[in-house]
């Protein structure tokens, strides 16, 4: 299946990629998506994960067409 991946802020700079369409096996978690998309870099422990713009945890299973986003701790306001 295919999922859309997005990286934000410092994570985008570290991974060197803003977003990508990623091919992955039919059963995959958000953490699997990270491994497929981040070029083998391990996922930093404080990374936040959102699937379809909702916070979730890295073990959440993703579906085909999902938007899977990874970003560092937020610093707005």
């Amino acid at each position, binding site marked *: 299946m295919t999922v859309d991946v*997005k990286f*934000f*802020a*410092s994570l985008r700079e570290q991974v060197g990629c803003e977003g990508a369409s990623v091919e992955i096996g039919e059963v995959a978690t958000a953490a699997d998506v990270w491994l497929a998309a981040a070029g083998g870099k391990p996922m930093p422990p404080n990374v*936040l994960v*959102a699937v379809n*713009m*909702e*916070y979730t945890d890295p073990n959440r299973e993703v579906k085909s067409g999902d938007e899977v*986003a990874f*970003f*560092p*701790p*937020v*610093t*707005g*306001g």
Partner: protein
Amino acid sequence: MRVRVEIHNDTLSPWEELASHEQATAELKGRIGAAGVFVGTMRDFNEASDVIAMHLEHYPGMTETHLERICAEAGKRWELLDTLVVHRVGEILPAEPIVLVAVWSEHRKDAFEACRFIMEDLKSKAPFWKKETLTDGSARWVEKNTAGY
């Protein structure tokens, strides 16, 4: 309860924003007894360094949805008539406002508590990220917001 959330690149003038927002919600006049407002402004100093500029990034779509949801949650916890959140993104200079949170209610307890609740959630969970430019031209990502309680 009314909810208005806005994210934009333009300069934020919080007091003008509040004046025009209240004009647009004139049907609440006479019912409102309290307004609780917070304005966050860029300082020229952060974590022991002089800061000359900042870039603010967000996650279009998720950020707005998250802010709308937290306003709705505040409306469940307190008796509110209206909520407004305006947040800047893009290039920001010292002394420029970054965020405006305003809450209108009948009684002051609700306005005070809901305004702080929305602001704390925004700081800890809304997807925004700051990158600071220092006086020597170098840039750094802000790593973490400070606790608000």
